[in-house]
């Protein structure tokens, strides 16, 4: 969406060097890649361990952490089908084809803005990297992390380790406030009188709700969409989302892998993905 220059991508065979299970189908994997270790928050990589009858294509995963010095990056992964399972099943020392870093990440906020991060599901992963880039005292930003139940907040401890200020909520009240993540968000926005900026990444209904809130309050907001993706290069055109660019007569299908995945929420035509 923005045309900020992003670090150059490369297609390489990379070693998976560290595997941490986070319980259930959740895990964190660390790969060696000089290129991807330069990724910006909100960028992703396409990963495929090996040829597999049911996995013709690579799968996209957000960059959760980077270590440019060591030339490493990490992803947070939820194994749900053949593609993500194949990645999750990698043994330490085994390799995978990694293409990245890809896409346009989050636009940095201005120093005088208060930052509200809203994440759900694997959508919180990019905020781990983003928070590192905010380098300011934690009072100036807060992550609102919601899920159906406590079991669906697998990253809480990991994110707290990173010193992030987090407000938790679950639909069933098994952890944090009971209800939707948007409730504590609205409360915080009501209490906020200075400049604010919103960033959302997670299930589409959540991002759509946050976009509406931002619109009502005229707060700048970016959302990170996650359509199906096949290549990450802008060539398969399988990942298009409907975007209304200013000055264009009508919304157009645009590849989220190259023009996104992060978009200004006011440009997104919802309900098409």
């Amino acid at each position, binding site marked *: 969406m923005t045309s900020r220059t992003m670090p150059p*991508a490369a297609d390489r065979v990379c070693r998976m060097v560290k595997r941490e299970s986070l319980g259930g189908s959740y895990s964190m994997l660390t790969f060696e890649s000089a290129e991807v270790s330069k990724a910006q928050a909100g960028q992703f990589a396409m990963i495929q361990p090996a040829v597999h009858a049911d996995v*013709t294509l690579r799968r996209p995963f957000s960059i959760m952490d980077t270590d440019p010095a060591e030339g490493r990056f990490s992803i947070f992964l939820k194994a749900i089908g053949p593609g993500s399972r194949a990645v999750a099943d990698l043994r330490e020392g085994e390799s995978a084809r990694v293409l990245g870093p890809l896409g346009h990440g989050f636009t940095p906020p201005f120093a005088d803005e208060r930052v509200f991060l809203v994440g759900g599901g694997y959508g919180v992963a990019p905020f781990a990297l983003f928070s590192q880039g905010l380098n300011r005292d934690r009072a100036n930003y807060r992550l609102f992390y919601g899920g159906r139940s406590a079991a669906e907040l697998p990253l809480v401890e990991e994110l707290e380790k990173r010193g992030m200020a987090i407000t938790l909520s679950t639909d069933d009240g098994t952890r944090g406030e009971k209800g939707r993540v948007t409730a504590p968000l609205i409360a915080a926005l009501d209490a906020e009188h200075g400049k604010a900026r919103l960033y959302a990444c997670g299930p589409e209904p959540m991002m759509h709700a946050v976009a509406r809130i931002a619109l009502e309050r005229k707060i700048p907001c970016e959302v990170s969409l996650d359509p199906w993706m096949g290549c990450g290069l802008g*060539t398969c055109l399988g990942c298009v989302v409907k975007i209304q660019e200013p000055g264009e007569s009508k919304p157009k299908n645009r590849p989220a892998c190259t023009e996104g995945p992060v978009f200004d929420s006011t440009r997104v035509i919802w309900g098409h993905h």
Partner: protein
Amino acid sequence: MTALKVRIGSLELRNPLMAASGTCGYGVEIANIVDLSTLGGIVTKGLYMSARDGAEVPRIAETPSGLLNAIGLQGVGIRAFVEKVLPELRTHDTKVIVNVCGETVDEYAEVSRIASDADGVHALEVNISCPNVKTGGIAFGTDPVMTHEVVSAVRRASRLPVIPKLSPNVTDITVFARACEEAGADAISCVNTFLGLAIDVESRKPRLAFGTGGLSGPAIRPLAVRMTWQAARAVKIPIIGIGGIASANDALEFFIAGARAVQVGTLNFSRPNIYADIEAGIVEYLTRHQLSDINELVGTIQYPA
């Protein structure tokens, strides 16, 4: 030193490896990942006169060792391609083949004329085989008379090499290969995708928003090799083999079957820089078989009597 140069009509390719239409965008999208000068050429995404927004999503579904797609030929249109894309594409040292589409015979001719007048377009691939549009496309490619008409019109409209791309969804591919040769084609691309349908059993809807789609990938290779072999025996013009190529061995099957060059499609998505490996494997094979030139391998299949 192994010779890999091949000729497709008046078009000379550095090596016989090309990126297939719709799987490498307009070339520029992959230029920072793949050194385009290591390819014989690239074939653009299908282009009509005007820009198209394509089909709704989902547009792609995976099937065993294959891919089903219905992109619906989203594209910028031939004029925007020439004005906005070609200048950058020209800076790369590779041959550019425009994949020509049309809803009418006249549109094919008009797109071909504009492409031919542009600086930096080296050949025309005539897409009469796209299964994912409601008008034109496959309708032209499954009727020998229409095939002849479209190819003749493009032939008249251009001095560039004309390369019709055949549909595999026919009873006898040789009928269409001959129709193209008679209409003045310089070569034949063999083949486009196979019409398929995958269903999401929970919603009972097709897995693609368009409904049916085109099947590609390793799954179709034995069918594409067979058609390449049949077409090569039916006509004198060169055949460009396409379908499921994922390794040097796969490419070699097509050359042995009679292909003068090959295109890689689906694998561009998962292995955009596969070309170096394929070229290395071909050179190793030719050397081991004491062949100094890829052209010596073309059509050397020993088919049982």
